[in-house]
């Protein structure tokens, strides 16, 4: 019984790691070697692709642009969602349930529906091709998600805590920042992680809302793939590097990640 369990988990993780290994494998090969044929590991190990990415501004600016709008989006989403989640978890007000579903329904909206109008909207606000445009556009799905997760975590804090604080004479903002936020620190961390993740992996909106100066790494990759022939080694290295930020962030929240995926509702 114990043995079968270990085998199941092992085989599953192996299945997850194989394509990632293949990507890494290719990133250390030259494009000629990749196209030359099948091999389990690089025959002539090279770091050339990585060197290109770290020295060529088009490449590394892509990473900088991506990180910029992802961080902006995370900060906006979490700070806007905090008071709203508190309202949903503590009070009843007119239309609260409808509002909550309407918010969630935006998480369900297919981004493909919104591409064209978004380009028009952000061009009209002269934000087109800025990181802020992408950060705001990603709020469409990240803010509702943040409200949803935070509301779950906040509902886990007994209401007596609030009442005691108000009796002790705390004002709402003072109470919220000094007492309540430390109590749900893990929830805030998990929420930030989710916003980071969904903003980092999205590409349809990020690509169409930028053209030159704010081009994200995912767009740099697709454009390079189509213009300069097929630089497979370079593409693989760039792809491998996009895994790094996520891997770092996930290591920090590993203890809370399972709970966070359950949206704080376990």
């Amino acid at each position: 019984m114990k043995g079968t369990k270990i085998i199941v988990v092992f085989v599953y993780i192996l299945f997850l790691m194989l394509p990632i290994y293949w990507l890494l494998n290719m990133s250390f090969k030259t494009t000629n070697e990749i196209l030359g044929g099948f091999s389990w590991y690089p025959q002539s190990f090279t770091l050339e692709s990585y060197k290109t990415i770290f020295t060529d501004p088009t490449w590394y600016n892509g990473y900088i642009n991506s990180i910029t709008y992802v961080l902006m989006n995370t900060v906006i989403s979490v700070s806007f969602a905090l008071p709203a989640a508190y309202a949903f978890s503590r009070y009843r007000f007119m239309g609260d349930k409808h509002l909550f579903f309407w918010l969630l329904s935006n998480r369900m909206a297919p981004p493909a529906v919104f591409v064209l109008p978004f380009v028009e909207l952000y061009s009209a606000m002269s934000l087109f091709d800025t990181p802020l445009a992408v950060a705001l556009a990603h709020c469409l799905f990240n803010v509702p998600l943040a409200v949803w997760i935070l509301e779950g975590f906040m509902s886990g804090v007994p209401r007596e805590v609030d009442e005691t604080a108000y009796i002790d004479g705390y004002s709402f903002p003072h109470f919220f920042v000094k007492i309540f936020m430390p109590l749900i620190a893990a929830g805030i961390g998990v929420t930030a992680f989710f916003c980071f993740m969904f903003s980092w992996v999205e590409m349809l909106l990020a690509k169409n809302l930028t053209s030159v100066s704010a081009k994200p790494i995912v767009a740099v990759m697709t454009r390079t793939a189509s213009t300069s022939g097929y630089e497979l080694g370079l593409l693989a290295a760039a792809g491998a590097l996009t895994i790094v930020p996520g891997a770092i962030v996930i290591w920090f929240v590993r203890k809370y990640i399972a709970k966070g995926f359950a949206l704080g509702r376990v």
Partner: protein
Amino acid sequence: MVAKTVNQRAWFLVLPVLLVVAMNAIIPLMTVVNYSVQDTFSPGVFFFEGTKWYQEVLSSPRFHGALGRQFLFTAIILAIEIPLGVMVALAMPRTGPWVSVCLVLMALPLLIPWNVVGAMWNIFALPDIGLLGFGLNWLGFDYNYTQQPVAAWFTVVLMDVWHWTSLVVLLAYAGLSSIPDAYYQAAKIDGAGRFAVFRYIQLPKMKRVLIIALLLRFMDSFMIYTEPFVLTGGGPGNSTTFLSIDLVKAAIGEFNLGIAAAMSILYFLMTLLVCWVFYTLMMRGEDES
């Protein structure tokens, strides 16, 4: 639990969220509605067309095809990912140093940008230089996803299973870890078998998170765009052209604004309807516990 207090001033706390989401949701949605009922011959000149585009979309075989493929795809991946995810979650160790390692490794695919996932699988499945494609051909299967529709479907489904099953695992695992040890001990004393433990202890405890998993996987698979677009480009032929791919093709590729907008609205309404059903189920589950 004390009942929630009624407080209309709570609206002020919700206002910032309302404004930022409304700007992103309502203005673009109105633009789409506008396009869906108008036609244009030159920039800036629009005239009202009523439901013409809707009728055209609803009766077009192309839309039916994309819709059918979309439902088929979503049904297949749900049928694979939910049971597989539960199975892996049941097999996970409950304590010890390996838990973190497993969780981090499993979450890794979730954090890779979607076009990188597509590109990665594009190469991984190539028959001459990719491990999967090469391996399958070496085993004697005639496999080439750029030419055979069946192989393309197999690759797209396998990619999605690779990409998203971990989400189900993590959710189910979260549900399982909330079961107190006492439950298992009680079951042991009663002489409950493996299946009885699953059916009467583990499954009920996982119900809520599984509904969340189902909801998230449905929404995301129904709007899937980037991964299959990068992997197969919707081909060979139209065999892996799902709704979003077809929509972007109509809107940006062919600049058929009226058709694309009418499709968008229908698409959005369908997602909304299904999600409303899930949401009602989920909220009912939450009220019970």
